[in-house]
């Protein structure tokens, strides 16, 4: 979708969160934003999956700690069956332990619980523009997951190109890992911000694929062994 078209229309958002207060507050935040539209809110995974059959939002916010199933399962289901729906995962701390599995399951990014309203809506909009928010720690971990060899220590050494990441993608991840913003990264690498976002989307997809591949490979190994 082009930016103009997106701005002209409201983004539909659905929420899956079992804590009533938190859900209420996020729902209020979404509603308060003119560019966002609250499509649905669910208090459990089962309800969400049932609801998806009727209403497919453009953005789905999922909490990991759901009462009836793991949020990861919801993410996986939605990513597999509703490719047009982007999933964002809620995280208390944005720590690697929770975020990376979610991304590997198919989420496109994460939101910090307890962040201010503006940050939430900003992040959701950023997602619609094609970018997913990444923290330096997460970027570092993604780099580690997708690159078997350690990166060169000093200086931007040449990347041998092994592993699923392209040299450009490695560069981007490294800069984000060091704390540069997306715009700064784009500026320093001499590319547009849109290109950076595109790369990041690809990186996310690769991570999901990689984890699936790894899972299949591991299962294979186990069967063989």
């Amino acid at each position, binding site marked *: 979708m082009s930016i103009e078209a997106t701005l002209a229309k409201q983004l539909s958002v659905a929420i899956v969160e079992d804590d009533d207060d938190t859900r209420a507050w996020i729902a209020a935040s979404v509603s308060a934003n003119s560019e966002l539209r609250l499509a649905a809110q669910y208090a459990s995974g089962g309800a969400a999956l049932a609801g998806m059959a009727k209403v497919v939002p453009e953005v789905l916010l999922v909490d990991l700690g759901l009462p009836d199933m793991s949020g990861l399962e919801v993410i996986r289901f939605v990513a597999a069956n509703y490719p047009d729906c982007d999933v964002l995962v809620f995280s208390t701390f944005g720590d690697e332990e929770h975020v990376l599995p979610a991304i590997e399951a198919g989420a496109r990014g994460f939101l910090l619980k307890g962040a201010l309203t503006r940050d939430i809506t900003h992040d959701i909009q950023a997602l619609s523009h094609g970018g997913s928010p990444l923290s*330096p720690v997460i970027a*570092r971990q993604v780099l580690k997951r997708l690159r078997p060899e350690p990166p060169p220590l000093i200086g931007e050494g040449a990347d041998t190109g092994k592993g699923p990441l392209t040299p450009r993608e490695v560069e981007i991840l490294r800069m984000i*890992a060091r704390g540069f913003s997306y715009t700064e990264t784009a500026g320093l690498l001499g590319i547009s911000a849109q290109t950076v976002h595109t790369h990041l989307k690809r990186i996310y997809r690769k991570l999901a694929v990689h984890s699936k591949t790894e899972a299949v490979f591991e299962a294979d190994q186990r069967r063989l062994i």
Partner: protein
Amino acid sequence: MKRFLAALVMLAAGSAAWAETAAPEVTTMETAEFLVSDAEDPPADSALWQPIALPDNWHLSRPGFEGQVWYRLRFDVPQVFIDAKRGHALYSPRNAFMHVRFFLNGNPLAFGRVYGDPLLTETQRPFLLTVPSLMLRAGENHLYIRMSGHAEERHGLSRVSIGLGYLVRRLYYQPRYDYQVTSIAMFGAALLCAGVLALSVWWGRRSDPVLLWFAIVALAWSGAAYLFLWPPDLQQDSVRQLLYFVMEHGYVTPLLVLCLRIGGARAPRLEALLWLAFTLCCAAATLAGVELYSRLLDVAAVMYLFLAATALAWLIHITSKEGQRNSLFLGLALATLIAFSGYDGARWIGYTDFDNLLLTPFAMPFLILALSDTVVLRHLSVVRALARANAELERDVAEKMREVEWTYSQMQTALREQAVLRERQRIMTDMHDGLGSGLIGLLSLVRSRGADLAQVERRLDDLLTDLRAIVDSFQPMEGDLGVVLGNVRYRMSGAIERSGVNLAWLVEQLPPIEYLTPDMVLSIQRIVLEALANALRHAAASNITVSAKYIAERGAIRITIADDGVGFAPERAERGHGLRNMRGRATKIGIPIEIDSSPGGGTRVTLELGVGKDVSPGERAGLAS
């Protein structure tokens, strides 16, 4: 094998004495006539020739005599041999004289030596002289022998045989040579090999002195054998006497020491005494005149034989306890040695035939064989004992190693548990001091009903930030300071954006730091947070620069947070809470920190972290200077 050898030796001794009474074409003269005279030519028939039986041992017939004697022997040669022009030969079993010259029918027989040439030294060797048939005549022939010597040295004339050359050679000379010379040479060679072998085995490890003494005995006897067979030409009496003494009795003292060693007895005084006795005897042999030397030899022979017999008897007694085979052989060898030595001693004294073979050289190999059996067995048992001791030692060492490893692993586990406990303690303290007190303070505020919601919200936000910071510190940074700094910016991005300040982010690709523990990460993040917070809140700055670069010359990473704000006076630096906290945190983790500021001149906070594996906190502190 050994029994067979012994039998062979006995047979040889017997047959040697027997061989010379065989062939009829050879005449063995057992009577002669003698005349004591210093004449150079055969004395006339009219001289006072005295009859005498052969062999003529001067020690018995004219004791103490020193000088020259003429002998006249008669023998018949059949006409047939003269006509056939067959070569003849003269044979005598031993060369028992100083100088000798033969005359046949008045004419001198060609002989390699001139009378008066240096002394013959091959006393024990058989003697053979070719007699051309032209010098013989049919019927009676006269053989004149001019001989000089010492009665004390057991000089004299052995039985003389004359006959067809080839027969004399084959039936008399060759067998005697084989028994008396060749066989002893072979034994000598065998003992030389045994001695060298034992020596080389001993040399390798030097652990068993028995091998060394066995080698010495074998080599001493081998040397004696070769001296016996090929004694060097010596003019000087003293040197010759010494040499012969050593040759005959030199091996006995080492033999005694060997027996002691095998038996495992330590008698250093006795050994010293024996060596002293030997040295004294050697000195006596060098200095004594011929007569005294001869007496000395007699005494020494008896004494040493007695000592050897005693030592061997003792050894047999010792080894008989261990097993039959050894002691039986040793006993047989000892008996042989005593018998042969006794036989030779009797001959020396004059009780047995002058011409008989010297038998003692045959006893020695047998003895050495018997001893080698013992020595090898002993050596084997020593080696086995060593191997056992080694194996035991290895087992002990292995056990100790296992103990050490177990202790080490226990220690490692304890250390790990300790580390975990410390970490837990730290987290507890952090939460207690940070979150705990923060929440309590907030609760108090709420209870007092005096706070507005905005204030409560702010405080809760701060507490959540702090909690996030703690969680952050446990995230895997993998030693990358860039991620640590990036994370701080990520957390503060909202606040920074809202403040409207320009942030210049100049963080380079940094080398990993091995010692970046969660504790360090948290402290660094808090310092940087504090510095940024000061810049945002108090400095009223418009530009903040955060830079991090690796300085190769110092082997360290330098982090700088600088702003262009109002700055503060240096005196205030010590009194301000935030600044004191920063310094305190830096000191706690051993990182040098510099805070430069001047009113109106902005503020600059610098941290330096060494990049190196073994950099301890103390060392790190020193890197700044």
